[in-house]
């Protein structure tokens, strides 16, 4: 086992725990979950208060009170009648909400296929025909104000995608496809995490959803769909990339690198996070990751590259960082 990194990596603002993201909805799929949560918390507090008061009376009230309380009638009223009413009401609320939130996507809705991998996210933007337009990793970009259908899949083990501010979680199960719909009402970044234990570094498998104003989204999409353009000043870094065999696992569209096992790196420099959320993405962290990702995210599928010299690491990370 390698030592843990000494410096704790900063999380982006989108991963803040306060206010609690499950109670801070940012779209129409998460908002009713928030109301439901508060309703349930209020119900729980009320019932707990009833129990505590009943128990306190049973223990300390004057004898006459206690005699009235200490009969089977209490069980019928507080233990049966009251719960039946409360639970029935809750059930109606819960089931109608379940029904409403489980509507299938409408035709023409933007579709993005998100595949859980050990331990990162493969994100493919789909054409209307269902064909794959381009791939990205560990970030989902969406336009604000309209629902987006995420087609959740997995080819290895079970993962679960949870973007608490945009919707509840849904599992990614080999052999099945689940549809999770999300919508953000405001541009911004929303943190997400794998919620189903998927082995090894499951703890370090995050994702960012980036919501753009509609025009910005189209711009972003057009740039992503284009192949990589590297300036000649990064020729050395590109050479390192090729020499070290990075292309066996990673694709960079527009170059010879066409590996499929790891994340597509065509526009890696434009990403906000690295290693599925363990680090912010910049040239320094890229160099550190390539040199020894195993020290940063133990157990991940990318080997460490101790053979690369400091200069080589600088070159290759500068090259990757330039792929915006």
């Amino acid at each position, binding site marked *: *086992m390698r030592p843990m990194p000494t410096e704790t990596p900063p999380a982006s603002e989108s991963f803040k725990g*306060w206010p609690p993201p499950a109670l801070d909805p940012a779209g129409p799929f998460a908002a009713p979950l928030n109301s439901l949560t508060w309703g349930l918390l209020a*119900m729980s507090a009320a019932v707990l208060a009833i129990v505590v008061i*009943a*128990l306190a009376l049973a223990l300390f009230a004057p004898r006459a009170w206690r005699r009235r309380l*200490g009969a089977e009638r209490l069980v019928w009223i507080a233990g049966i009648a009251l719960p039946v009413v409360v639970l029935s009401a809750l059930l109606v609320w819960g089931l109608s909400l379940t029904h409403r939130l489980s509507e299938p996507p409408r035709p023409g809705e933007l579709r993005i296929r998100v595949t859980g991998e050990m331990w990162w996210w493969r994100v493919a933007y789909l054409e209307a025909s269902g064909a794959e337009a381009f791939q990205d990793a560990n970030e989902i970009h969406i336009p604000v104000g309209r629902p987006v259908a995420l087609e959740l899949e997995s080819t290895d083990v079970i993962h679960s995608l949870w973007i608490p501010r945009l919707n*509840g979680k849904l599992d990614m199960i080999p052999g099945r496809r689940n549809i999770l719909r999300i919508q953000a009402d405001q541009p911004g970044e929303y943190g997400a995490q794998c919620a189903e234990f998927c082995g090894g570094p499951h703890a370090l498998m995050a994702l960012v959803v980036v919501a753009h104003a509609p025009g910005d989204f189209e711009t972003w999409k057009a740039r992503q769909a284009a192949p990589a353009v590297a300036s000649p000043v990064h020729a050395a870094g590109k050479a390192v990339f090729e020499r070290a065999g990075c292309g066996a696992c990673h694709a960079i569209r527009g170059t010879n690198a066409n590996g499929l096992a790891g994340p597509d790196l065509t526009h890696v420099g434009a990403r906000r996070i690295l290693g599925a959320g363990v680090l912010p993405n910049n040239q320094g962290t890229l160099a550190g990751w390539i040199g020894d990702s195993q020290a940063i995210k133990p157990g991940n599928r990318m080997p460490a590259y101790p053979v690369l010299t400091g200069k080589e690491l600088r070159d290759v990370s500068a090259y990757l960082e330039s792929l915006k």
Partner: protein
Amino acid sequence: MSGPPPPSETGFDTSLYERFPTKGRRPKGELEQLEAIWCAPKGWQWITVINNNYVGVYYVGAAMLFFVLAGVLALLMRTQLALPMQGVLAQETYNQIFTMHGTVMMFLFAVPAVEALGVLLLPQMLGARDLPFPRLSAYAFWAYLIGGLAFFCSLFFGLAPNGGWFMYPPLTSTTYSPGINADFWLLGIGFIEISAIAGAIEIIVGVLKTRAPGMSLDKLPVFAWAMLVFAGMIIIAFPSVILATTLLELERALGWPFFDAARGGDPMLWQHLFWFFGHPEVYIIFLPAAGAMSTIVPAVARTPLVGHWLVVLAFLATGFISFGVWAHHMFTTGLPGVSVGMFSAASMAVSLPAGVQVFSWIATVASGRMTFNAPGLFVLGSLLIFVMGGLTGVMAAMVPFDWQAHDTYFIVAHLHYVLIGGMVFPLFAAIYYWTPMVSARPLSERLGRWTFGLMFVGMHLAFLPMHLTGLMGMPRRVYTYAAGRDWEWPNLISSIGAFVFAAGVLIWLIDMIRNFRPFGASEAGNVYEGGGLEWLPAGLYSTRSIPVVTSLYPLWDQKTLARDVAAGRYFLPGAPTGGRETLVTSPINAEPQYLLHMPVPSGWHVWAAVFTAGFFLLLTVQAYGASVLSGVLAILCVLRWCWFLDHPLPQRTVDVGAGITLPTYASGPSSTGWWAMVVTLVVGGMVLAMSVFSYVFLWSRNPDAWRPPPDMASLAVATVSAAAGGALALLAKRHLARPWLATAMVLSAAALLTLAFGVDLSSWRTTGLEPQASAQGAIVHAILAWQGFFVAVAAIMALYVLMRRLCGYVGPDRPATLELVGLFLAYTAGQGLVGLGVTRLFPAGLA
């Protein structure tokens, strides 16, 4: 009870009860004989001992050992999570530790602990000298202890399972878990489930058949009701996880793709099978603890339980409804809407019986006068904690909320509130309450208060913040978390709380060391003034005589009972057959039926446990030859253990007190053996039912890939020979007057079953259906393998009957063995027919 007595259930004249208590002095030497027969163990006998007074204490002790061990694992985890990005535990170590914490707490602590409580308390509560199969409970204990310790030790070699306590494939398949870590879980836990089932059989038969005369079901102590429903639920639920673990082990070892989507399997099958067991499991753990609560609350409040019948109905309702809630662990898997709604409704409904019990306890407290002693404090704490856990459970049963809360720390908080409030606190109440029954000294009230206070405060400190941590986005099962996500404070508080809780447990341990003195000549006695039979003066033989019970709280209502029982003025004041014995009574009215002659200690059940454990553990480490040898030795030990059962005594009837005579031998539905066999076959039937479910489930995933079954001729041959075998097996006992004929019938029945199985297997082989190639191949071969296992056991039983015939042990004076073997063979035939019907006629027969 007023009014005329109910009609007799068995023909026993209940007016004979009026002869008790008897008058006059008991003969000299009677008590000394009882003491000599039920004498304390010496030397090696401490291991071969079978008396529940010993085995029960060992059993509870072992369960508490695992509680402490799994608790230490929890402290390690809380140390790692106290601060972000710590390196106290490496990732792989942490993943093994959280898997082991859950697994050990659920399988090696919670279920065995409540089962142990039953073994320790039930005979005393029911007025029996011991459980009906004392060697079986001793076997279950040793198998559990050996298997459990070996399983735990896998942690020290880095070989512990690391896929979480519910072991979801494909993460636990050989592709993603190539080591033997997962095999330790599958074989180790699968094996411990067998021990749990053995204990459940013991408890069901004990509660139904060995009660004190007159203890009809309406006078059955509430704890015994809880244990009865508990054991019934084990019988229904555990087969599902036994099947699941077997299928996953088959997939891992032989490549049969039950859960591999690429070859037509489905990982969701595991989730259905696991949670069909896993959710009832929670109530399995909760019910006995609730039964203890419903016993202790009246004792500490000095008044009968308010709403006794509502509480009993609540147990039964919990048992039923809990089998309809399993999919609430799967709300985020994309289940279809209709089933989601049904499971959500059932999950909310299952909280109703819990509400009934909570308010029954509150009403009982109100109608009496609560004493704030150690058991009383634990009972109150349990009530509050459990209600809080129940409320978050109702929240999680709401599907849309569960989409947020599922697999986060909110659920970690919820399940710990439920399990600590619903099981751990009641267990501690039970330990404080019943220690004076087994120990020469009660536990300390002062230390008990400290223990309670620290555990109560620590519990809330540790788990209350976790609700928030979950809503703040922290998923469960993470070995670390990044700084700057605002999770630092709640995690630090949780970690402090865990250590406060542990300090409470530590003080309890000190209390135990200072005051717990079991196996002595005397006990502290009824310190808390309970009203149940377990507080009668007792020795290793249990009570001197077995009372006639006329009320729910006999010690409160029958004022002279303790004195008369101790003076031998009731049933069975001595040992009329000269050996260990107890009364067997009828299941509803508890009318005396016969005197059960019980075994004395011997080493065979211990060796059987050692070799059974050896079989599974050697299989885990892939020492196949040694494993098979160990398995054969285990079977031989079991056969040797059974060999001297079913021997009629020279005295066909004896006087069991007041001139009432009872037979000393029984077969058929009045006998304990018949009940045990029927319950065992229910276990087999449940495995079959879950296999059929798996078959249909896998077919529904890939109907187009299903291949046609073999020809109809093989179906006809197999059906006829299985049916004939079953009929012969059932008829054999009618021909006991001609022992060789009866023996030959059993042997030919086994041969016909073997033939049917052989035809079935070989005809499938000719179709070219390979178990590794498709889900159909895998599940068909799994059903065949299950039948093959039963056929093999049937063959061993038939040969056992032959051996007994050769020794002259088959005859009309001892029908029990032949009858039970006949039942088993007939069941095997029926199971074979169901397997044939399903694999060959579904879905082809539907078209």
